[in-house]
């Protein structure tokens, strides 16, 4: 027995027409789709970001340090790269840098870019910094210049 004869001929015809239309559409617009994908990829690497004006905090028994930046990108669930006008701010000090890696889980941060620390009567210029122990310890790396103003 020929099973093909049991199929609804009109349904088969509709399916074939639909398949042909889809194939034609794909054939004519595929170049455009791929070119757009490339543009999108470039945009991610240069200008896009995961968070605009991200804000985080580091808390310890003595103070709360707020962290702000112009943009942030998640490297994974806990690690974020903060870029452009990164500012660490507490009641006692501020640290300015252009790029900082922040670990949300361990409440640590480090930068290898030029950094400026400012607190009452104190300015520190360094080639990067590292915050550990929930902000109790701040290490300024490389050639460092400190000016005590009082």
């Amino acid at each position, binding site marked *: 027995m020929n099973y093909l004869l049991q199929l609804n001929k009109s349904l088969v015809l509709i399916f074939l027409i639909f398949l042909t239309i889809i194939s034609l559409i794909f054939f004519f617009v595929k170049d455009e789709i791929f070119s757009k994908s490339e543009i999108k990829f470039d945009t991610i690497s240069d200008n896009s970001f995961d968070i605009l004006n991200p804000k985080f905090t580091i808390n310890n028994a*003595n103070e709360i340090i707020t962290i702000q930046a*112009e943009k942030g990108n998640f490297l994974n669930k806990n690690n974020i790269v903060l870029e*452009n*006008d990164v*500012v660490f701010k507490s009641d*006692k000090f501020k640290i*300015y840098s252009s790029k900082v890696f922040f670990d949300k889980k361990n409440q640590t941060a480090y930068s290898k870019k030029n950094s*400026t620390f*400012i*607190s*009452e*009567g*104190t*300015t*520190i*210029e*360094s*080639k990067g910094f590292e915050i550990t122990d929930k*902000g*109790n*310890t*701040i*290490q*300024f*790396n*490389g*050639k*460092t*210049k*400190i*000016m*005590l*103003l*009082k």
Partner: protein
Amino acid sequence: MIKLFIIIIFFSSSILSREVGQTEITTDEGIEVFQKEKYYLLKKNVSIISDNFELRADLVKAYFDKDLYDISKIESEKDVILKSSRGILAKGDKINFSTKNESITIEGKSSSLTYDNIFMFSQDLVKVDNLKGNFIIKGNEAELKTDSIHIFGTLIKGNFVTIDNVNEVEKLYVEDDKQANIKTENINMFAKKANYNKQDNIIELFENVKVIRGNEIIIGDYANIDTLNESYKIKSNNSDKKVKILISQTNE
């Protein structure tokens, strides 16, 4: 963004050169700030320049009171040189000093402190409380030198006063396991222990005393020397043991 840029430029330009009242610190390998413990560590080729002092060392631990600018105590290590605006020059392996009470402790080999006309040296410890004028020089080759007196021992302690910008030793105690040595312009003295009091102008020598003045050599157990007229009394504690005077002739 522009605001931030202006702030950074302002502070960058303001630290290019030190002004009066400011302290400038530079390091080759950074600084570690311990906020809870209230101190910071300065690492490698450290230089601190302020109105009151200049310090060079390889490792410096600076304690602060209110904030980082308010340094109360400095502990420094490795080839330390400290110069103060009051004329102190200290050198040693390790120098600790308090900026509040102006006390300086120098430890290690070739520890030295020069304060205008006073020179102190030891292979172990030199300690000076500049406000009170107290000092201790302890250890091998302990030495104190002024314009008028030169002392060697294993322990030298006393105090000095500044009169008309000249430092003078006011009180002094010297001891040595073997023999301490005190030299003035005309007298060379040896003993295990010695006391000096500027007010009375008296040097007292105890145990194994030997006094050399010109061609005279006097040996005894105790000596009392008047530094003004350079007269002296020497006695022996034991009646069997007498004071010995040796007079040598010069070939003239």
